[in-house]
């Protein structure tokens, strides 16, 4: 196992929500593991807060399970989910490859945007692709919406993609003009440098539909009936407004509603 323990042993809340009946409770006979990754408003280790952290706490509370939470790079999270060494992670998106080894319980959806420096003179996606001098920063193993993925793959062919294991160096190099663009989600703005970044950059849309994000569950470590139980928990969190309330902590109400009530 890897990386720091955020909460060494998080013990389940003593009382269970009334919505979850005994037969619907997940199997808590062993400690479960959940991986968080440092990613804008999803989770910041500087403050030990974020959407994913809140969702994690709610999952622990509702399931009554002991879940060990670790912080690790996203690429490593996917490797461990695939191998079965990690049970959960959050805010994951699907693709054909991931569907093989992971199951999902969706709880929000959002679009991807190209965040690009104003001085790069990019009005639309094609402008970025055309200009050979422009480099794009992405997080290794991240997949985005369709047009975003196409752009990444094309630029990768021309060795114009800079990889990182976290968002922080990408923002840093974007401000240093070592990269000129990066693909972000609404919750990706860093807490500390958000203002400076908004001043320096513009947003270009990918014209893709919103992509659902959800709880990532390892098919290797969790049997199908357990997956279903965890899905039920997440669905209940959506239905009773818990998810929306979490998002409202981090976004303006209208944006939060758009993301949580997709």
């Amino acid at each position, binding site marked *: 196992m*890897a990386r720091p323990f955020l909460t060494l042993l998080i013990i389940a809340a003593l009382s269970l929500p009334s919505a979850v009946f005994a037969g619907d409770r997940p199997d808590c006979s062993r400690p479960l593991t959940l991986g968080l990754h*440092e990613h804008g408003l999803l989770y910041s*280790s500087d403050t*030990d807060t974020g959407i994913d952290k809140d969702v994690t706490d709610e999952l622990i509370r509702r399931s009554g399970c002991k879940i060990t939470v670790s912080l690790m790079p996203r690429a*490593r999270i996917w490797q461990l989910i695939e191998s079965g060494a990690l049970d959960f992670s959050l805010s994951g998106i699907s693709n054909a490859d991931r569907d093989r080894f992971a199951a999902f319980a969706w709880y929000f959806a959002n679009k991807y945007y190209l965040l690009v420096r104003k001085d790069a003179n990019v009005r639309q996606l094609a402008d970025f692709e055309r200009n050979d001098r422009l480099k794009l920063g992405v997080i290794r193993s991240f997949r985005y919406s369709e047009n975003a993925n196409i752009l990444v793959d094309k630029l990768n062919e021309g060795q114009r993609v*800079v990889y990182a294991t*976290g968002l922080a160096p990408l923002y840093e190099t974007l401000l240093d003009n070592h990269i000129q663009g990066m693909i972000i989600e609404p919750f990706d703005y860093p807490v500390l440098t958000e203002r400076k970044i908004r001043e320096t950059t513009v947003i270009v849309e990918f014209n893709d539909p919103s992509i659902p994000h959800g709880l990532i569950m390892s098919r290797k470590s969790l049997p199908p009936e357990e997956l279903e139980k965890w899905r039920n928990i997440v669905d209940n969190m959506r239905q009773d407004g818990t998810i929306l309330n979490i998002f409202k902590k981090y976004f303006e109400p209208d944006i939060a509603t758009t993301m949580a009530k997709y």
Partner: protein
Amino acid sequence: MPKTKIPIFSIIIFIISLAVTFLAWRHERDNARRDLQSALDFQLQQTTNRIEQRMAAYEEMLRGIQGLFAVTGDFRRNDFANYVESLQLGADFAGLQAIELARLTPRGQADTVVEQVRRQGEPDYHIWPDSQRDALAPIVQIEPAMGRNLQALGFDPFSEPPRRLAMEQARDSGLTALSGKVKLVFENEPSAPAGFLLALPIFKTGAPHGNLAARRANTIGWVMAVFRMGDLMASLYGEGTAGIVTEIFDGTNPSRETRLFPVSDSASLASRHEFAASEFVVIAGHTWMVRVYGTPGFKEQFDKDKSDLILMAGLGLAILLTLVSWQMATARERAQHIAERMTRELKESEECWKFALEGAGDGVWDWHLAIGELRYSERWKEILGPDSEEHSTGLDRWTSRIHPDDLPAERQNLRACLAGTAPIYLSEHRIRWTDGSWHWVSARGMVVSRDIHGAPLRMIGTISDISERRSTEEQIRHMAQHDPLTNLPNRTLFSDRLHLALSHAKRNHEHAALMFVDLDNFKPINDRYGHDVGDIVLKEVSLRMRQSVRDSDTVARIGGDEFIILLPSITSHDDAFFVAEKVRLAIAQNYDLPGHRLEVSSSIGIAIFPEDGIDALTLSKNADDAMYQAKQSGRNRVQFFRGTVFSQAPSTVD
């Protein structure tokens, strides 16, 4: 030969070949580059994964120590030493130089801390460097406590920005924090390898640290792992992958100042290399830039680039294809040229022959038997005369106009030639013109092509007008057999006819008569009136004699005034006598010449076959004798060889 030029076809092939070669070359080169880049990317990911996992292990180790303090609650030297020793940090933790314990110390309590440490067995302990900061964080314990590690005892890491930053970051987040590039305390050399440290806060036992304020309020110190970058990397990679150089920089800006690894200044920055890949790795809230690049050896080792080979082969092939197409194109041109020349020569030759043949007066014909078509020259038409069957084709159309006497031979010759038994067709025959006249022609021809079964397909030939030749030949033959003055058969022709008549008479047991006619007293006419008058008389005598006999009888002149008459078929002596008398009387008629009236008589001797002889010689001699007797008997009379009948007919022939 026309002027040689590069055909457009070859140029197009050359251009297409070059384009294909270029595309193949670029494709292969790009593939090879991609392969090389993939190898580098793989190496890069391997490197970052190893670093992350190793650092995660270190973080966990620190968390263990943090847990120790959570339990013990104070800085007890032996507990810490025993714990670290029990970790049994072996080769897997190579690169870790020391684990330090820093105690957060308000300035006012510095002396107390110094005193405590000195009492615990470090009599020389002091805090350094001196500063006026409000808060200090002197290192109060180092494990393993041996050798150069001990040099750091008492050092205040808060005095150095990179260390302090990491410690504050760890304190605020409650998590492990990685420092920037630092020079380790015990490193005295200016070119000493770079180092860094991992810091984790220690909180008061039982005190809350769930939020920032609580963490800041309850932090009592830090546990820090100190690393030498070179040793860490060596433990991760050993000798490393041949041909691939790994560089690690502190932060996101690669430079000599930020380089953590390798230590050596001789290593160049990766940006100058053709094949390089980099990635930002966030470790414990701090960014490292990991960059790999391929040395020339890397390219040799991993390079599967066959693009140069493809380029050379493609160029060679392009040139080869172009030359071949050029050859093909010009070969066709050459063949066309040869064909044109042959056609021209053939045409010239044909015209030449046509001219020669036409000049020689010959007509030319070309008979395509398969389609029944006959082609011919103008001269051919002239020779054969106007044709009422212009619309019909084929040589056969002339058949009906061939003289019946000549037709069988002509047909036979033609059939033999068509059948191949005779090499050429040769025929001289007469053709009837529409005006009814006959014209001699000489036709020649040969079969020039046959099908696989030998059937004739085409026959060509000539035709010549030989009417004149034939006429001349006829004239010569006539002159050889006739007396030029009287146009009567001469002795030669008469001799032939005599023999013919005798043979015929013998075969049929018939009688024939031979008469010798000699003019009486003719010489005086010549002498008296001249030869011209004599000739006129002779001509007139000849005419009267011919008029006196049947067509089947022959009158010939055998000497100056001597004639001979052959009656090939008689039934009695009287027949001969009557004819002889008729002749004698006709000759005896007066000859009215301008200014003269002449009289000529004749003596005629008759010999009868077979009584008077059965051969020509005997009969001639006997007829001559009879004529002589007639002369002797007074001229102007008829005398049989046997008997003396004188102007008197014998009763019968025995």
